[in-house]
């Protein structure tokens, strides 16, 4: 407050020193510079996205075929398809969302609707914030120590899903909390005034109104789960496994790790390039496809709520 008023004073003095007309010119130039900079930043970001997408599609589309999508890898992964990696990634998404979504949403409901402003709540919020900023490889090591070794799930789909859900729970809690805060208190009050209990109010009025926001959080999480490599590498992803996981205790292949393997190991890295780009393209398409589904669900709920 004090600082900003000082800054203002200084600006004010310098503007006065420049006199009336030059001040006008100065303001207009400033405006033009700011506008140009902001536009350039936006264009640059959009440009990079387009370039990356175009590059991957251009290099990868040639290998995309029914065979590529539905067959096991062969010949040291230089031929055949990436079917097990696709299935692995989809299972990871389903498994980790299945754990993280209910837990995250319930935790957010507790924090937002029930917990008071106590020291404990403050500590929980701090922990969530720190968790959200923790590097994913740390989650991987933690998952390795806890789920793989200590609990004894072994290097498995289960361990990897649990590890990934820890990674995304903070994201889901945060976005659910924001969605809950956005629900007007009038809804809560008028439901309670009808002799509806607090939990029923949350279930029938607050949560439905918050669903679009919760889905937005889930969209972010799906991308995260599909793309993370370090946590699954340490907890269950296989280097090469030409079959589908037959239980939650099996190891599995997953697209990001498969991509890493194709791009860094083996003898024919250069020759494998198209397969690498093809794999990246499939990974991107899965994430994009799931995002589109989530956006459609969100739109459905928004229309239902007439927001």
């Amino acid at each position, binding site marked *: 407050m004090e600082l900003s008023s000082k800054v203002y004073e200084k600006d004010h003095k310098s503007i006065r020193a420049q006199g009336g007309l030059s001040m006008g010119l100065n303001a207009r130039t400033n405006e033009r510079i700011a506008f140009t900079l902001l536009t350039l930043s936006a264009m640059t970001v959009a440009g990079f996205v387009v370039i990356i997408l175009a590059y991957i599609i251009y290099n990868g589309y040639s290998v995309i075929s029914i065979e590529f999508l539905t067959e096991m890898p062969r010949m040291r992964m230089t031929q055949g398809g990436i079917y097990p990696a696709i299935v692995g990634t989809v299972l990871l998404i389903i498994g980790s969302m299945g754990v993280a979504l209910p837990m995250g949403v319930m935790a957010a409901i507790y924090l937002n609707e029930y917990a*008071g402003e106590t020291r404990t709540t403050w500590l929980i919020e701090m922990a969530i914030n720190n968790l959200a900023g923790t590097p994913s490889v740390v989650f991987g090591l933690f998952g390795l120590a806890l789920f793989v070794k200590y609990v004894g799930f072994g290097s498995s789909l289960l361990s990897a899903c649990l590890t990934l859900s820890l990674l995304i729970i903070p994201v889901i809690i945060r976005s659910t909390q924001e969605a809950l805060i956005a629900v*007007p208190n*009038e*809804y809560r*009050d*008028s*439901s*309670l*005034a*009808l*002799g*509806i*209990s607090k939990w*029923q109010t949350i279930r*029938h*009025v607050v949560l*439905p*109104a918050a669903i679009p926001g919760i889905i937005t959080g889930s969209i972010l999480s799906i991308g995260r789960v599909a793309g993370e490599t370090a946590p699954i590498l340490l907890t269950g992803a296989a280097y090469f496994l030409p079959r589908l996981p037959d239980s939650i205790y099996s190891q599995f292949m997953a697209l990001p790790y498969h991509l890493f393997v194709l791009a860094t190991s083996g003898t024919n890295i250069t020759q494998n390039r198209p397969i690498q780009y093809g794999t990246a393209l499939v990974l991107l398409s899965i994430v994009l496809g799931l995002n589109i589904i989530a956006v459609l669900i969100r739109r459905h709920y928004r229309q239902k*709520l*007439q*927001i």
Partner: protein
Amino acid sequence: MTEVVQNIAQPRVAQPHITVGNLNLWYGEKQALKNISMHIPKNSVTALIGPSGCGKSTFIRCLNRMNDLVKNCRIEGKVLIENKDIYGADVDVVELRKQVGMVFQKPNPFPMSIYDNVAYGPRIHGVNKKDINGVVEGALHSAALWDETSDRLKSPALSLSGGQQQRLCIARTLAVKPRIILFDEPTSALDPISTSRIEDLIMNLKKDYTIVIVTHNMQQAARISDYTGFFFMGELIEFGQTRQIFHSPKEKSTEDYITGRFG
């Protein structure tokens, strides 16, 4: 009951529905209600008037314990509804609020269809599925909204006009079948025509319900109420029949407020 409640404000009525005795309320350190005592008669409209911040809204929120939701709010004294202390240890607040409905200042229907808004309460309270239609229709009739909405019950409640939304909120309250309805400035966000419709509605409802209404609008209190209480600085200055309060107030500050000298 009168032993419990001393220095009770007039009028002494034959059939008090709500009796308030020595009610004090604090928000943190600040005392918002000071020693309020009154009988609110059954099947009548009781209006509470007074300048902003005088405690009238705080007061009606004590009658369905909505103040329980406010942090640092402390209440002393007694509120008896049908001779039962609603602040007693054995009282189920959820059950109490079924008996004492409330309509708020801003029309606040849920983001659902018209039908679902009215059916919301009865459904959760476990009213038989085949009876719900009847309850909804009855409530919309009583709230004078049936003719306007019977052909579009499935359309969103938020597509209604402000006045219709407020009547929908009244229908939603009626569907739960309360015995008392509290109105917290129900027309302050509405245009004059919608306001007069709500006023007519409130006067009709007193046949079946005991009504307490907080209002900023003195003409409104004079038009629709049987009894009027004047609140000032957290105290109930004067309480009596509306005619008496408006024609021959006993207290100087009541007269000053009614004649528009302040507030």
